[in-house]
Structures are given as structure tokens and as C-alpha cells.
């Protein structure tokens, strides 16, 4: 997320006389907190607590342990793999794109155009995205057919299948790449042109510039953004549901089935499943925030 600069605003004024006692100042934010309680904190808390309970409401760690049974564990593993693959791919390609548009010496209109398109593309996800990739890389999709016609190369004979780990990763990257472009742009902006010039002036080659200056400054936001992409992919379900259905058993698909019909035959295990998901996304986001703050210290 881009840093917001604060315009200079004076210290908070005291409440005006008609506000009454101090307790009145809280009135304005009560609706918000009630809303947050009802639709964010309580539901999550309920699931979290439920994960630690058995069918009769007693405290137990059984559910957490059950998360490690083969079906569930492999489900988490597949989720991690897909999320990591699309995060790394999205991060690398997104970074290359953003860097090319911002610092690559391209015409001035390229950057705002890329930002606009990224804003659109990062929102094109879920069910329609799955359709789009089916229409493009499915067995009779445009790209598949073109590759056969123009290059004689049949990707399906070569072992590719859209309804697989690789296919889902590729589809996820459609919104991961633009998301990366948007998140990493401020960090690339922070890389001042004078540093490149100064390093050249002191005799450094392009490679030495990257090795000693650009990458050391950029790796925290790069890694942090990759983690954000990871969390983003981990929590996604609509795209996978529409594309691979239950053939690729990622955690969100399993959770979806569990909510629909208690396929695990254990309510509390379902809660633990959700709890595990929250844990993964929370850790990633926390790491992202830590990393984002790291190099900002230098760039004051």
C-alpha cells in the first residue's frame, strides 16, 4: 500500500462546549465499532474459538492436530504451492513491468497507461477470469489453436492442461502481476535517478549498480509485496471454483465444500481449517508490514 503523506494539521482541538462530557466524543464512532464487531471480529473469533473446541464445547487441541492428516495437509500444501508460484511469478514479472515503465527510459505515456490497465486487470478475477482462460488456453481455446496452426506446437500433447496446478497458477498471475505493479511502483519511484548516475560516475557497471545499490534497497519491498501476493492467492476461491472445481483440492475449495455440506463430518475441524487459513494470511501480511518499514528507514 502506498504511503500517505500527512498535510500539516495542528494538534486536535478540545471538544466544543456543546459536546458535553468526554463520553460524548465516542458516539461518533460507535456505529463503526458495532459494525466491526458484528461482521469482522465476532465471526472470526467464533471460528477461532470453535477450532479449539470439540463437539460438546470443551477445549481441545484435537482439531489442530487433525489438520495434519494427509488429505488436509496435502490440501494446504497445494494451496501453498499455487499461492507461492503465482506470487513469485507475479512478483518477478510485475516488478519487471513496473521497472520498465517507470525507470526503463520508455515514453512518458507508458507509465500512467500501465497503472490504469493494472487497476482494471487486478479487478478482473473470479469466475469471469476462469472463463477467459478456458476460452484462451482450453483445448479449443484461441491461443492453443493458434499455436498449433502457426508453430505446429500442441501444448496439450506436450503435457499442459489448464485444469491443473500450472493452469491455475497461470490464471492467478493474471491479477497477481497487475497487483504487483501497483504495489511496487512507489518503491521504484523511491529509487532516485541520481543514484544510478552517481554509481556510473564512480565507475560502476549496470550489474554493479544493481548488486550494491538497487537490490539492497529494493529487496524488502519486493519480498514484502511477494508475501502480499501470496496471502492474496491463498484466500482466493472463486477463480479456482470456476476453473478447476474440486479437481484441485486447495484449502479454500475444501472449506467451500465444508461450509456447503460438512464433508469433513466434523464442524470443529471445519473451524480449525478456517483458523489455519487465517493464520497463513495473517503471518504473510504481518511480514509484509515489517518488511515495508525496513528500507523506509534509509529513504527518509
Amino acid at each position: 500500500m502506498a504511503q500517505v503523506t500527512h498535510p500539516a494539521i495542528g494538534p486536535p482541538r478540545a471538544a466544543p462546549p456543546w459536546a458535553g462530557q468526554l463520553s460524548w466524543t465516542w458516539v461518533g464512532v460507535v456505529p463503526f465499532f458495532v459494525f466491526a464487531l458484528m461482521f469482522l471480529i465476532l465471526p472470526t473469533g467464533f471460528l477461532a474459538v470453535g477450532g479449539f473446541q470439540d463437539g460438546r464445547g470443551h477445549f481441545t487441541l484435537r482439531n489442530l492436530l487433525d489438520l495434519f492428516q494427509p488429505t488436509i495437509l496435502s490440501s494446504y500444501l497445494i494451496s501453498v504451492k499455487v499461492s507461492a508460484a503465482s506470487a513469485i511469478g507475479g512478483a518477478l514479472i510485475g516488478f519487471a513491468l513496473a521497472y520498465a515503465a517507470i525507470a526503463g527510459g520508455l515514453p512518458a505515456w507508458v507509465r500512467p497507461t500501465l497503472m490504469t490497465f493494472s487497476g482494471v486487470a487486478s479487478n478482473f478475477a473470479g469466475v469471469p477470469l476462469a472463463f477467459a482462460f478456458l476460452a484462451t488456453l482450453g483445448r479449443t481455446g484461441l491461443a492453443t489453436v493458434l499455436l498449433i496452426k502457426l508453430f505446429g506446437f500442441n501444448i496439450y500433447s506436450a503435457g499442459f492442461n489448464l485444469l491443473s496446478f500450472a493452469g491455475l497458477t497461470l490464471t492467478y498471475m493474471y491479477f497477481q502481476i497487475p497487483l504487483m505493479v501497483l504495489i511496487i511502483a512507489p518503491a521504484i519511484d523511491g529509487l532516485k535517478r541520481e543514484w544510478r548516475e552517481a554509481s556510473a560516475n564512480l565507475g560502476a557497471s549496470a550489474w554493479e549498480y544493481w548488486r550494491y545499490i538497487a537490490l539492497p534497497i529494493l529487496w524488502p519491498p519486493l519480498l514484502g509485496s511477494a508475501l502480499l501476493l501470496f496471502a492474496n492467492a491463498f484466500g482466493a476461491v472463486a477463480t479456482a471454483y470456476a476453473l478447476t472445481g474440486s479437481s484441485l483440492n486447495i484449502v479454500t475449495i475444501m472449506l467451500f465444500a465444508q461450509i456447503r455440506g460438512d464433508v469433513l463430518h466434523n464442524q470443529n475441524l471445519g473451524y480449525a481449517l478456517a483458523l489455519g487459513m487465517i493464520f497463513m494470511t495473517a503471518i504473510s501480511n504481518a511480514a509484509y508490514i515489517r518488511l515495508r518499514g525496513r528500507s523506509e528507514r534509509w529513504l527518509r
Partner: protein
Amino acid sequence: MNRGRIGAWLALLFGVLYFFVPLLGTFEFSLRYLRGHYSLEAYRIVLADPRFTATLTYSTVLAFATIIVGVVLVVPTAYWIQMRLPALRPVVEFITLLPLVIPAIVLVFGYLRIYNSTSVLPLTGTERATDLLLMFSYTTLSLPYMYRAVDTGLRAIDVHTLTEAAESLGAGWSIILLRVILPNVRAAVLSGAFLTFAIVIGEFTMASLLDRPAFGPYLQLIGANRAYEPSALAIISFAITWGCMGLIQISARGAPGQTAGAH
């Protein structure tokens, strides 16, 4: 320097291909309904389907309701935090970031558990109540974007001075909010509103699990059963998203890009 520039153009070319080829593929696929030649038959079928209009209307109405609730919830809160309770800012900001951390599917799971027919607040008891619940779910989803847009907009205007000026002229707090603050953050609110619209129209997970006739589940249903209509729907859906983003650009004019949507 020149080698770098070639690399930059190549990267850009790759990005353009990755972005446009799926769209082209979808569009081309959607024209294939009638064997032998391209036609807009798939679109005709889709647009004539009563469920298309019904679900799109449902989602649109829900979107508008979500926007209104979102504005009513966020604008006073953001205003209050800036004016009177800046100490609470980190807490509120943390809360507004929670919907980005907690996946939507987990949230709706929670709703189904605590608001089902056996609870104190049986929001899933009737269809209307479930609609209400779905709307609140969408408000939660759009909260981060709405709050950030409004908060940025408020910081750009000097809230304190405007309020004091209005107070000295005799305005009460509701007048201040409606007539002074809201018009000045119009651009920010609009950009949050268009983003919310795009989110709600495309959302699948919550609508599906709460079993409501929204546009998202309709899309998925068509996808499971038909061959060419899904592509037409995808193009229509993309056009709607594109339209929203375009309207954001026009109204916000320079606000940082935001992302959302059912994944």
C-alpha cells in the same frame, strides 16, 4: 543505456500480450456460437435470458445499497477520527485492513455460524434478512477501499477549519457532515463507490454460500452448463469492470490505484 531500453520494451510487450491475449481469446470464443462464421448469437442468448437480467438487477441494487451503507458508515467515522479521536486512528485503520487479511470465505463461514436460525440474530432465517446479511458482507469487503479513499480525501481538505467555520455560522454536526464535509470529499467517495460497485457485481463466494440470486453465482452456473455463453458473459463482466475503473479515473483524477474483487 540502449540495451536497457530494448529490455524495457520487451517487458512491456510481454505485459501487453499477457493482458490482451486472454481478452481476445474470450471475445473470439464468444463469437463462435454459430458454427462456421462469427456472430453475436451468444450475446443475444445471454441478454435474452431472464436470469441474466434478474441476477444483474439484484446485484446492482445490492451494490447501490452497499455503497450507501458504506458511505454512511465510513464518512462520519473518518471525520470523527480526524476531528476528535486521532488517538484511535491506528485501531480504526487496523480494523479497516482486516477484510484484506481475513479471506471472504472465512468471513461468510463465520456469518453462517453465528447468524443462522438458531442464534440471537437469525439473519439467515428469511430471504430478506439474508439479503441484508449479504449487503453487510459486501460492506465489509469494500471497507478497506472506501475508508482509505475517504480518509485520503479528508486529509486533503482542512477538516478542522472547515468545521469551525461552519460551527461559527451556527451549523450542527449533521449539517456539517451533509453540507460541508460530504461535498468536499465527493471525488474520494465516488472513487470508493465505483470500486465497491465493481466488487459487488463480480462477487461469487459470499453470494453463493448465502444462496442468493446474485450475478456471480449466475455466472458460475452458466459456466458449468454452457459452452459459449460464459465467454460472452466474461466479456460483459469485463466491460462493466472496465467501465467502473474508467469512472474512477475520471472522478478521482490521480488517486492511487486500488484493487479488489472476488478472487
